[in-house]
């Protein structure tokens, strides 16, 4: 009989007293399955403790700064907080760029379709709390229509945000060297292809849940790429070579 999960965990974590440890070791001498499980678990534990930190995307600070600026304003807290002159944004050509980018970023996050089984089954419009329960078929039909309406709304929202970001990126693309411009175009082409394929799948089958998710994920990826592009333009206009290099490196990794 194998030791319990708790006992093996304690053994792997070195939390057993000598007697309990000896008992497990006697079992391990004869049980290949447990011995390999213990060896692999120890290796996983060791590697897990040495994982690297991840750097957040550069746009994260832009989003946060904008959110705090909006939050600080109504209460009048920290009147000088988040002065627009910071980060070189006072220069006219960059002020609109930064403002437009952060507004778009703030408006285009948060769309996620829940799996159908996880959706709350809201009563149909006009039904009373004590009205008879609608049939399963009617309920499923209403849910499907609700999902498609939700998807259309999300799609519309993403498209507006993406259009705005594209305008910014296109107007400022002269700052890019040919290689960076090619990387951006390549990444955009891959995402656009995914959007086209998801749309084609949805035209054939509007209720196709993987295609719905794929379309939203592709929009989200395009938003993220355009946000990185705008962040890159900002860093290059500011002359921040290190910041620009970090973003370009991230773009290249995504395109690999």
């Amino acid at each position, binding site marked *: 009989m*194998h030791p319990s*999960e*708790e006992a*093996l*965990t*304690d053994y*792997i*974590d070195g*939390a057993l007293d000598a007697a309990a440890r000896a008992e497990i070791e006697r079992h391990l001498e004869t049980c*290949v*399955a*447990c011995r*390999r*499980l213990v*060896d*692999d*678990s120890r*290796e*996983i*534990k060791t*590697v*897990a*403790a*040495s*994982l*690297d*930190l*991840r*750097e*957040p*995307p550069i746009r*994260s*600070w832009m*989003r*946060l*700064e904008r*959110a*705090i600026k909006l*939050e600080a304003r109504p209460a009048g*807290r*920290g*009147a*000088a*907080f*988040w*002065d627009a002159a*910071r980060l070189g944004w006072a220069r006219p050509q960059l002020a609109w760029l930064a403002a437009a980018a952060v507004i778009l970023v703030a408006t285009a*996050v*948060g769309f996620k379709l*829940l*799996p159908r*089984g*996880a959706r709350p089954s809201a009563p149909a419009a006009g039904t009373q709390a004590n009205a008879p329960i609608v049939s399963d078929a009617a309920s499923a039909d209403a849910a499907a229509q609700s999902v498609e309406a939700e998807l259309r709304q999300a799609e519309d929202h993403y498209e507006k945000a993406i259009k705005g970001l594209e305008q910014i990126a296109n107007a400022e693309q002269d700052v890019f060297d040919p290689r960076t411009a090619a990387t951006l175009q390549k990444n955009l082409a891959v995402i656009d292809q995914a959007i086209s394929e998801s749309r084609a799948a949805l035209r054939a089958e509007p209720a196709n849940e993987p295609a719905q998710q794929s379309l939203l994920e592709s929009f*989200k990826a395009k938003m993220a790429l355009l946000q990185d592009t705008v962040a890159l333009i900002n860093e290059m206009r500011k002359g921040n070579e290190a910041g620009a290099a970090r973003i370009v490196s991230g773009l290249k990794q995504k395109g690999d």
Partner: protein
Amino acid sequence: MNAEAADADIIARTKAGDADAFEALYRRHAARIYTLACRMAGSADDGEDLLQEIFLQVYRKLGSFKGDAALGTWVYRLAVNHCLDYVRSRRAKMNKLTETLDADTSFEPHAPRETPIARLDLERAIERLPDGCREAFVLHDVEGFDHKEVAGLLEIAEGTSKSQVFKARAKLRGYLKK
């Protein structure tokens, strides 16, 4: 300037409306918090959203920071609690059960590994773990909390924490062999 004085300086300057001070605080801690959030949520997209929410909370609550612990410790605790709230709320919304946990955790012998586990492979495998055992694994094996602390954070019994970590390691082992 020692760490305590540096913390006090950042807090005083932020409260006085010095945006550079809050940015300095963000830059100092963002990577650790972002990494934690990505791993707890199991996705970089959710990790990025969590990072923003956590630092908004830091900004809102900085006035209540008493200095009982280092500022970095306070930010980290706030981040852990926020990530746990997020995962709990997501699980409630998704009605996600952990019945699939029993898969891949049998005592059937696996062939021995031929190559060491690469960090990147483990990172990707952690993202695949089901909610529940992922949080226990990240808190215990990655972040270094002991089972008593994990149990307290997740509001579960200590034995359950051990069992969740066991299952997470077993599932990871299965993912990494495929």
